[in-house]
């Protein structure tokens, strides 16, 4: 792991510790944040209520009556030294296929409704994103978006919303600014993008990310009806790998019927993700990951 600046430790009032590993996003720093939060969770410290990994940082919510702030800080610093000296480069996780109907009429209707909050009054968000990234067409943007897998680098904002970071070199990252002013409405299961992060809106609500399409597959199910939610109402966990697949309206409706019938399951396979192998040959590694998803 390359040397980086020391982490920044800071108190969020008397009940939160925030550790900023880096101000910039990278796979390496996200791996370090994941490793530290897992190692901290393994310590099962009394008084630690929530351990929340984020993209390049993490948040610990604690009860200072049970664990004093300086005791907690010492524990976290110890964990950081452990992870620095023996970086965990392997992640046991799964790869999941998320079907997306890109450029669909629902998304475009929402985008049109909030055009006064957007950088570009003409066209839709997909056309804006293609132009922003110097691509000739929306088809080319969709090919890039659905071509390489993404890592779930954080879950949050609202219940079960995954932040996704594409597993390609920095030069090939798709980047778009957020809306000038956030929308007051976003349909559930909209596939969004802001900065370098993709997301899937888990519930209906406000949002500032650009909108590219919609998935028919629920990712948050408080009724826990579908098989993928038997254990918990939230589908995504930090570390999950995601492959977006472009689908058409007919397939969108078919999956919608499977969801209504309660039979839908995400296509997914368990996999071990090795950061060093990936960094050595990203394209080959991604191709191998997709073969795992296809069960080959």
């Amino acid at each position: 792991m390359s040397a980086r600046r020391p982490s920044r430790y800071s108190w969020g009032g008397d009940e939160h510790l925030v550790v900023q590993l880096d101000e910039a996003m990278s796979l390496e720093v996200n791996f370090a944040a994941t490793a530290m939060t897992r190692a901290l969770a393994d310590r099962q410290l009394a008084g630690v209520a929530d351990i929340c990994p984020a993209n390049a940082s993490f948040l610990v919510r604690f009860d200072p009556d049970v664990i004093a702030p300086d005791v907690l800080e010492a524990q976290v610093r110890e964990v950081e030294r452990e992870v620095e000296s023996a970086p965990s480069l392997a992640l046991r996780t799964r790869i999941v296929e998320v079907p997306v109907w890109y450029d669909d009429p629902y998304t475009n209707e929402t985008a049109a409704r909030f055009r006064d909050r957007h950088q570009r009054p003409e066209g839709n968000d997909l056309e804006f994103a293609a132009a922003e990234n110097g691509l000739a067409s929306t088809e080319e943007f969709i090919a890039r978006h659905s071509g390489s897998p993404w890592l779930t680098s954080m879950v949050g904002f609202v219940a079960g919303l995954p932040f996704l970071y594409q597993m390609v070199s920095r030069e090939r990252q798709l980047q778009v600014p957020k809306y000038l002013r956030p929308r007051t409405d976003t349909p559930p299961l909209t596939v969004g993008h802001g900065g370098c992060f993709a997301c899937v809106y888990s519930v209906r609500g406000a949002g500032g990310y650009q909108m590219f399409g919609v998935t028919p597959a629920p990712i948050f199910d408080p009724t826990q009806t579908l098989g993928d939610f038997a254990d918990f109402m939230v589908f995504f966990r930090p570390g999950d790998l995601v492959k977006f697949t472009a689908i058409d309206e007919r397939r969108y409706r078919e999956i919608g019927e499977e969801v209504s019938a309660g039979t839908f399951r995400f296509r997914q396979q368990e996999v071990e993700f090795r950061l060093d192998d990936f960094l050595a040959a990203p394209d080959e590694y991604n191709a191998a990951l997709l073969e795992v998803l296809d069960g080959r």
Partner: protein
Amino acid sequence: MAVEIVAPGLAASVQDRGRTGYYDVGIPPSGAVDLYSSGVANLLVGNDPGAAVVEAAYMGPHLRFTERAVVAVTGGRMPALLDGEPVPQWESVEVAAGAELSFGYLEAGARIYVAVSGGLDVPVVLGSRSTYTLGSFGGFEGRVLRAGDVLPVGTGSGTAGRSVPEELRPALSKDVDLRVVLGLYDYRLTERGLATLLDTTWTLTPVADRIGFRYSGGTLEWQDREQPFGAGSDLSNIVDAGYPLGSIQVPGGVEPIILHRDAVSGGGYAMVATVISADLDLVGQSSPGTRTRFRPVPLEEALAARHEAAARWRQVRELLS
């Protein structure tokens, strides 16, 4: 025994002390925005302080009790009427089967709490009866209350006529000092930006709910820089990170937002300070127009304030046990 909602008032929901352990997947604690008042309402009617109550903002609900019960109303100052006759707040009151509780206009504070002996017996979801409306779960059918809803009540045995003395009720004011711990991403502000944060008398806007409280009054200046990769182009943007409860973020440098108990768990706006836990109830009792100043304190002072609040809680608990 049940409580029927004749009219829901505004944004009324079922809340207890909230849930822990799911913030890492974006599920906030929820629970009463004024924990002290909801806890005291429960103590008054002989409940565990963590029992579920009705929380309502700005406008009281109209409730009917199907059987005899003991109830208490705490929180903001709002005349309570039992079958049209005034009854005191911060005091346990017996209600007959079929009696109706309604409210006059809010006089001070922002939120009231209605506890019923036995507690509201809605299903426990992820360890709590609190409503999380964004996630559509918890409380009564995962949503705010509507006319016609019938809330089941557990069995309890409260005593009428118990009350809380004035000095153990929250002071409700339209001028509020909030103690904050500076930090998080405050290094992104210029000296002038930090001074603006601390020297401005901020005014609470109408955008104030269980998720967050938005203030107006000034513009914070950020340090100019090339933004780190992935953060987004605005100087107030950061690579999306976890948001502490009570943290103050300032999108675009205007209109600071204090996150409360239904907080969004993370996002891409720089947070510059966090309201200490002892002052979060005070935020919850702020109504639009409340003049608010942020007073920086070191962590030690935040902890001392926490201990004072806990001592006050023990005092009221002993009084009512």
